[in-house]
């Protein structure tokens, strides 16, 4: 059901008048809320120029925000590649005909989807050095945590995608004499990836946001450098947090926009398998530990 104008009639004169009144009332309420925030800021002197001015200095950007963004994007990019690999491997593992591959793969995927990412990162960063008896690199602790969690979620997405490929595809592939591994790599995975593209990209947005957890184990990312360290110098936590949030929102909106563009494109060219729409629906609606926004 399209939500526009199905839930309510095309407004007549009375409804128009009522909507106008509601618009004014709620408009005033929103303005009131904004004013309340403004006055709260004002009361605590948060509009002082000295707190906002640092964002016009070049050094603020080159010393704090851009290196922070670089740290965030670096960890996100490496973790994206690794978790896609992890996802494909474990999706194939879970679909294996051999129980000794299927069961461990399933257990690993279910386990890492159920464990909070922060707990995992703490274990990798603080716990693993006790076992290996050498210090753990912060970068790899963040990337490893992100990979294990998001890779497991992606494994489930790929699996749902493989199920969405019509049976005839693999039957035809077997009929022309392809081996099991060929059917998987040549026929099923490419179609599954295409069908699940929206789900995969939205998981990548989750991954970008999850890099902020690196702040807690003091990895030099946007929150650490751009908010924590910057505000240590200028005393402008609030302002720095707002700027950092804006940067995150821009980066993620770009990713989301790419996802929407990709899914429109796939649909238009009719490249997605027939059942793909249903499968995407299934995957987004399917219960599970992934999705739901991550951190």
């Amino acid at each position, binding site marked *: 059901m399209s939500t526009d104008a199905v839930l309510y009639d095309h407004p007549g004169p009375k409804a128009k008048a009522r909507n106008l009144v509601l618009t004014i009332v709620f408009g005033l309420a929103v303005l009131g809320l904004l004013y309340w925030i403004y006055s709260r800021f004002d009361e605590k002197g948060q509009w002082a120029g000295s707190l906002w001015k640092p964002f016009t200095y070049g050094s603020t950007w080159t010393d704090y925000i851009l290196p922070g963004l670089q740290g965030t994007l670096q960890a996100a990019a490496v973790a994206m590649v690794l978790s896609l690999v992890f996802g494909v491997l474990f999706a194939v593992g879970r679909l294996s005909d051999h129980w000794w591959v299927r069961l461990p793969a399933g257990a690993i995927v279910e386990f890492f989807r159920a464990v909070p990412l922060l707990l995992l990162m*703490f*274990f990798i960063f603080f716990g693993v050095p006790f076992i290996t008896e050498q210090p753990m690199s912060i970068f790899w602790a963040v990337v490893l945590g992100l990979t294990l969690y998001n890779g497991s979620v992606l494994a489930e997405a790929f699996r749902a995608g493989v199920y969405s490929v019509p049976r005839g595809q693999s039957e035809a592939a077997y009929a022309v004499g392809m081996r099991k591994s060929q059917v998987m790599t040549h026929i099923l995975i490419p179609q599954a990836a295409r069908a699940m593209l929206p789900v995969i990209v939205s998981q990548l947005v989750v991954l970008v946001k999850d890099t902020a957890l690196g702040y807690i184990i003091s990895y030099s990312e946007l929150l650490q450098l751009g908010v924590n360290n910057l505000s240590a110098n200028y005393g402008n*936590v609030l302002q720095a*947090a707002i700027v950092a949030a804006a940067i995150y929102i821009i980066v993620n909106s770009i990713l989301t926009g790419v996802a929407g563009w990709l899914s429109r494109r796939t649909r238009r060219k009719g490249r997605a398998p027939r059942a793909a729409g249903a499968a995407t629906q299934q995957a987004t609606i399917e219960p599970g530990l992934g999705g739901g926004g991550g951190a």
Partner: protein
Amino acid sequence: MDVFSDPLNRDVYITGFLWILKLTLAGGVGALVLGVVLAAMRVSPVPVLRGFGTAWVNIFRNTPLTLIIFFCYFGLFSTLGFSVVDDIDLNNFWLGVIGLSVYTAAFVCEAIRSGINTVPAGQAEAARAIGMTFIQTLTIIVLPQAGRAVIAPLGSILIALCKNSTIVGTIGLMESSNAMKDLINANGNAVIPIFLVFAGTFAIVLIPTGYGFGWLANRLAVKR
């Protein structure tokens, strides 16, 4: 398992998970109420409300929860002097609940809106044809059917909320992940058992919860 035979350590473990439980429950209620209201706003005939709902979702869905919780503490509490109660732990708890609620509400809103999309247009048209108002159409006809369609996604959101509540540890609450960190640092010889107990607790509770929601969703799905 020697670590957990020490009553002090066991206390740390239990307190940690009690905080998680409280955060999940309080955050879940807050997010559900806020999310339903936001979803209603996003489909309402009043443009200002639609804009407000859309802005909320776009802002909070794209900001990391860590930053939101950070903001709740350093911005809302330290800088603007907003506090709920005097007790430090309890105040951090409520700041965490605020952060979790506003963040999760964005996801609840989107889930419910996608649920509204699964209700056939004829339902709302029929409701309008017999003269129901927008509020009546929404609350009597559309939301009950939409609610049954979104049990599974709401379940995933609840599970994500439970896992996300560990992030409130950033502002000093001794929830499970901080508890685990302390136990690991104090007992370097038992790192793996400690991790397995903490992670296992989450897995044992959350994996069946996920399947339970799946079962419930199937049972309650509107058969069309």
